[in-house]
C-alpha cells in the first residue's frame, strides 16, 4: 500500500474527485494548506497598496491505495488536476506500514 499525497489548485478538486472515484479510490482526506514552489506567491491589492503574499492557498489530498493501483491513480490525478499553468502542484507517494479501519478493526488492504 502507498500513501499518495497530492498538492493541487483548490478549484480543481471538483474534477479530481470524480476521476478518482472511477478508479475505485474509496476515500481521501482534503486539507486546506498554503505554501510555495516555483509559483512563489502572488500579489493582492488593499486600499491601493500591493501586498506580496508569499504563500499560495492549495489543497492537500491524501489517500491510501493498493500498490497495483498506484500508477493509474497517479495518471488520473495528473490529468484531472492539470491546468497547464504554473502552480498546478505536486504528487508523491510514501510506503504505508499498517492500515486499520477504526470501526471494525480490519487491517491491511481489507481496511481500504
Amino acid at each position, binding site marked *: 500500500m502507498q500513501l499518495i499525497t497530492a498538492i493541487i489548485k483548490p478549484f480543481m478538486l471538483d474534477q479530481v474527485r470524480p476521476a478518482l472515484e472511477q478508479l475505485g479510490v474509496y476515500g481521501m482526506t482534503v486539507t*486546506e494548506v*498554503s505554501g510555495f514552489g516555483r509559483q512563489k506567491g502572488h500579489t*493582492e*491589492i*488593499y*486600499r*491601493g*497598496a500591493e*501586498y*506580496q*503574499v*508569499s*504563500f499560495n*492557498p492549495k489543497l492537500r489530498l491524501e489517500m491510501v491505495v493498493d500498490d497495483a493501483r498506484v500508477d493509474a491513480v497517479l495518471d488520473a490525478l495528473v490529468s484531472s488536476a492539470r491546468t497547464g499553468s504554473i502552480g498546478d502542484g505536486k504528487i508523491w507517494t510514501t510506503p504505508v506500514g499498517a492500515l486499520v479501519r477504526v470501526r471494525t478493526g480490519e487491517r491491511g488492504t481489507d481496511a481500504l
Partner: protein
Amino acid sequence: MPIDTGDTAWLMLCTALVLFMAPGLAFFYGGMVRSKHVLSMLAQNFAVIAVVSVVWVVVGYTLAFGPDLGGGLLGGLHFAGFANPQDAVPGLHLHVPPIAYATFQMMFAVVTTALLTGAGADRMRFSGFLAFAGLWVLLVYAPLAHWVFSPVGWLAKRGLLDFAGGTVVEINAGASALALVLVLGRRRGWPHDAMAPHSLPLTLLGAGILWFGWFGFNAGSALSAGDLAAQALVSTHLAACGGLLGWVALEWRATRHATTLGAASGAIAGLVAITPAAGYVNSADAIVIGFLAGAAGLYAVRLKFRHGYDDSLDVVGVHGVCGVVGTLAVGLFATHTVNRAGRGLFDGGGLHLLGTQALGVVVAAGYAFVVTAAIAFAVQRTIGLRVADHMELQGLDRAVHAETAYEHGGGFGSSNRSF
C-alpha cells in the same frame, strides 16, 4: 419650548442608529486586521461605548453643552451627572426633551472615540486605551464640541458650519489618530511585512452597518423630523454612492481591479465628507462631494507609506483627509435653497464662508493633534499604551484577552493567514 413628539421620536431613533455605528465600526475594523487581533478590535470598540457613555454623563456633556464659562471655550458644570435635565441647552431652541439631545450627543462622543481604535490597531494595550479614551473625551472631544456644536461656542459664533461633525468628529479623529500613532510607534514588521485583512466579508458587513447608522448621525443632526432631516438623509446616501464610485473608478484606472475593500472604503469616505455638509448642500452636489472624497481617500491612504507613520486602518487618510474635503466643500456648495444658515462660493456667497471653514479645519486639527499627543504620551509613561513585543507577535486576542476568535486560526471567510 413645547415638546414635539415626532421630533422626539425621530431623535431617539437616531440615537440608537448612531450607537449601532460602534459595533459597525468594530466589524469594519475587525475584518481588516489579521485574525490573531480581531477580538481585540471588537473588545476595544465595545468597551469604548461603556467608558465614553459614563464619562459623558458625569462631566463630558456639561463641558460641551453647559452654560458657557466665558469666551465660548468651555461649558460649566450645570449639567454634570445629567443634573437639571429639564433645563434648556444654552443657545438651542429644541422641540425635544434636553435629555434626549444629551443622549444623542453621547453617541457622537462614543463613535468618534471608537474611530481611534483603527489607528492603533494590533498594538494598543486594552487598559491603556480605555484610560486614554476617557481623558480624550474630556480634554479633546468635549471642548471641540463646545466650540462648534454648542451655539454659544466660539467657532459656532464665528459662523463655522458643521452639520454633524466634519471638524468635531472627522478631522478631530484624523488628527488625533496621527498623534496617537506617532506616540505609539509602528507595528513590528511594518511596512515590509504584509498585514492584509483577514476577513473582508466582516469589513463589508461593518461598512453596511455604518452606512445605515450614518442616516441617524446626519439626518438626526437636523434635530427635527422635517425638510432639513429629509435633505440631510438623501444627501448622506448620495454622498456614500458618490464616494464608492469615485474610489472604485480611480482604483480601477490605476490597477485594473475594482476591489471590495475599495468599494467599502469609498462609501465611508463619502459619508465622512458629507457629515459637515449634509444639511447645507443640495442632492446633486452631495454626489460631487462624495465622489471627490472617494478620490481623495484613495490617494490619502498612501500617505502613510510615504511619510512612515503606521496608521493601521487609515483613520488619518479616510476620516482626516475626507473630513477636510467635506468641511471645505461647505464653503463652496452651501446654498440658501437648502438652509438659510449660510451660502458658499457657488451660491454667490463669496469666499467668506470658505475662509471660516478653513479656520475650523486648522483649529480642529491643530488642537486635536497637540492635546491628543500629550494625553497619549502621559498614558504611555504611566499605565502604558503599547503591549510588549511578544504579545503583539502572539496576537492581542490570546495575549491580552485570553480568547481566540476562530478554531484552527482560519476564520470567518479568512484566507488562512494568521501568521
